[in-house]
């Protein structure tokens, strides 16, 4: 049965220094895109981490992360590592989790950085070039 107290979905519009963050509890999906160098990254990422924790503990359904992150400052890198660790723990308990990291093929360096994140993850972690419209 669904959770008794639903945690509200995230719908953070994003700015020049913060990514667009959207969660979809029903679909089991979390998307983040853009640059991330917020002034207070704990304020921003605490709610994301809380959502992921809640979804992983309340639900049994798979969770998919769709990322199109470009530049991350140090505290954002740490927050992402924390989120990936949560997924790793869930995966070890047998939960289906997956990450897809989309990058602009004109910027291969972002793919290399995604590879660095992927290093200790044993769940599916795809790094795919995004379609370019420009």
């Amino acid at each position: 049965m669904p959770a008794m107290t639903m945690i509200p979905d995230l719908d953070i519009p994003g700015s020049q220094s913060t990514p667009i963050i959207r969660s979809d509890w029903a679909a089991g999906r979390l998307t983040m895109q853009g640059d991330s160098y917020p002034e207070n990254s704990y304020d921003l990422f605490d709610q994301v981490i809380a959502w992921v924790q809640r979804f992983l503990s309340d639900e049994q359904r798979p969770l998919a992360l769709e990322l199109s992150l470009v530049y991350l400052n140090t505290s954002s890198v740490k927050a992402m590592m924390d989120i990936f660790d949560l997924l790793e723990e869930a995966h070890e308990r047998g939960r289906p989790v997956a990450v897809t990291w989309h990058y602009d093929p004109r910027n291969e360096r972002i793919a290399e950085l995604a590879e660095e994140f992927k290093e200790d993850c044993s769940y599916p972690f795809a790094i795919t070039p995004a379609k370019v419209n420009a």
Partner: protein
Amino acid sequence: MKARGEEGLLERVAALLDEPRHAEHPLREALEELYLKYRDQQEQLDRLMNISDRYQALAREAQQVTQQRYERALKRQKKLSRISDRYQALMRERNQTLHQEAHHDALTELPNRRLIDERLAQLDQSGRRYTLALLDIDHFKQVNDEHGHDVGDELLVAITRTMRQGLRDHDLCGRWGGEEFLLLLGDTALDEASRIVERLRARLAQVRVPSGDRWLSVTLSAGLSQHRDGEAYLTTLQRADQALLEAKREGRDRSQLATR
């Protein structure tokens, strides 16, 4: 923990104490007391060692857990620094690219007005001597109109290449406008600058670019002005611009020195 042979001794003492014929022996009571006391102490020693061993095992376990946690934290920290450093390097490179793009002309890759302005302002502050030369391709509009902008662009690139080769390392050549170039000749007086520009104009007149089945060449007009002590570079520039105008008026394909 018992020493070797101790067990045998204890058994012998126990057997002696048990023998009825020793019941009335004057040493028997003292020996029995000693025997029991010894056994008691032995038991306590064993318990003590047992407890001590268990404490040691616990401490070892705790230490291993701490060690593992520390190693995990260290590994995480290293990963964090590594990724963060790479992002920083990425930003640095992006900044450099942006800086390059903001200060250079996309077609010819020459320094643009912004960069030249910065250099001139620096020169003014340093108080060093310099001469400015504005060079303009004669009848360039006609080239574009008759041969198309692609040929015009090609011509600009070819002119740029030759101009670069003809200059000294410390000279600066920038694209000032559409078909207008600015030369900044450092530590150079007007007469020397004039010789340099004349040599350069001669070489530039030799530049050929293909247009259909023909070869296209152009001439350039130039206006030169030497910086005067204490004046702002804009004033020097205005004089060079005025001189260029005069060179054009005088029939083009020539240099004019600003003397006023």
